[in-house]
């Protein structure tokens, strides 16, 4: 019986072409921020299982180590630190000779109605969601750390266009990042460096959980036509944009919101 199976498998040659080759990330070094939980964690796990070598970043040493231990393959690195601090960003930039991709998944959400959205709140949102990714990107480009064919993928938010109540600080910071990405894509297209963004709707993550009673996840899932969205629903979209399968896509937005925004005038 075992003899037969050996003969069978060796006589059947692997198909020359299966259409999904370009979704594989082997030989690519990818920086994943926000990798200790939520969307970033799901993206890191999927990128590694598709063969990428990763540098992962997050603030919690314990949780980041747990993600690192879970990654398929070897040679991955982790760098603990807050991306609003220059030292963290420089450490990430120096961690690899060249990057083929960036999955910027770090972000923070806090809600405040406009009446309460004071300067401190706005500064905090801008600092985490706009200035940190913008500063990291600028240094990657300035230090020539991006390989030709590199793909920069940022997780933004449907909120940047939907602008729900109490999101003025958060939505504006994500909108600022989206505008930045579109300029970036335009300036670096000729070098074959791509920049795109994924805009998720309400995803079941620790970030949304942290908002506590301000956002009821069950209610949001009910409002979402396709139901509850998990981090693992976002990761394949990020991977598609990181991979050579999307080599002609830049300056584009991929909305993954289970149809939540269909009824909105964005």
């Amino acid at each position, binding site marked *: 019986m075992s003899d037969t199976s050996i003969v069978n498998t060796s006589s059947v040659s692997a198909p020359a072409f299966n259409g999904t*080759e370009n979704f594989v990330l082997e030989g690519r070094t990818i920086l994943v921020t926000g990798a200790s939980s939520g969307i970033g964690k799901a993206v890191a796990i999927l990128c590694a299982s598709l063969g990428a070598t990763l540098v992962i970043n997050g603030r919690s040493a314990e949780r980041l180590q747990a993600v690192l231990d879970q990654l398929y393959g070897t040679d991955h690195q982790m760098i603990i630190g807050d991306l609003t601090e220059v030292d963290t960003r420089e450490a990430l930039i120096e961690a690899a000779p060249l990057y083929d991709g960036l999955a910027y998944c770090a972000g923070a959400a806090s809600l405040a109605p406009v009446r309460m959205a004071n300067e401190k709140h706005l500064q905090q949102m801008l600092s985490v969601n706009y200035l940190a990714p913008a500063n990291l990107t600028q240094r990657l480009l300035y230090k020539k750390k991006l390989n030709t064919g590199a793909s920069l993928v940022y997780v933004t938010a449907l909120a940047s266009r939907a602008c729900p109540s109490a999101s003025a600080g958060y939505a504006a910071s994500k909108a600022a990042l989206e505008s930045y990405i579109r300029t970036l894509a*335009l300036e670096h297209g000729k070098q074959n460096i791509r920049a795109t963004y994924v805009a998720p709707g309400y995803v079941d993550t620790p970030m949304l959980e942290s908002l506590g009673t301000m956002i009821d996840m069950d209610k949001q899932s009910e409002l979402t036509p396709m139901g509850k969205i998990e981090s693992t629903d976002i990761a*394949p979209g990020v*991977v598609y944009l990181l991979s050579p399968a999307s080599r002609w896509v830049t300056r584009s937005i991929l909305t993954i919101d289970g149809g939540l925004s269909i009824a909105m005038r964005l």
Partner: protein
Amino acid sequence: MVDNEITPELVAATLFGLAGKTILITGASKGLGQETAKYLAAAGAKLVICGRDQQRLDETLKSLLGSGHRSIIAELTDMDKLMNVAVECGKVDGVVHCAGIRGLSPMKLVSETHLSEVMATNYTSPVMLTRHLLAKQLITNGGSIIFMSSVAALSGTVGVGPYAGSKAALIGVMRPMALELARRKIRVNTLCPALVETTLTTEDRPWFDEISKRYPLGVGQPADIAQACLYLLSDASRVVTGTVFAMDGGLEYA
């Protein structure tokens, strides 16, 4: 056992592959529809390919990897026969509407006949074909429908009025459809590609070469569209619906 080892290739083929799915693809006898058919078949889908030209459709059918593919010769603008196409097609897990024509004409020269022709092929046919498939319960729960729109629906260029209108109409019809089908977990999305290199678009070489310069990443290849379809048809995009996805190589809008 080595054969069962999980490899990156296997992960990609599983997540973005189409094994076990049957997909209907129109406009499969040439251009991006033909190339998309090749990718979908390679990724494990059983295809029902649809087109007008028997010979070219046969060629496409022969070029497909895998087995169990079928072809339907049909003039999709013939509304009387469209229901037959749906019946002949049978149950599917996905539909890619690639059939389309160009509708180039400056506004002052647009005729009602031309406008109707463009709307019939680019809008009415894909919408009514989908309608018939839905009415006959031929699209399985969890399925995926892709309309081929265009960047012409998102940004303006002179001389493409009839075409742009028909492609924008697809975006309009997609949204209610996506909402209506969400209960059955069927997704509906539109792709909006800019210039893709096909026999049709390269007929006028000097024009093509000149306009290509506006694309930082070059003009698109049919394979680029095919791979976007793989993402949108596979379970990788389980919750992606109602989206307008632009693919334009970073086209610098003048």
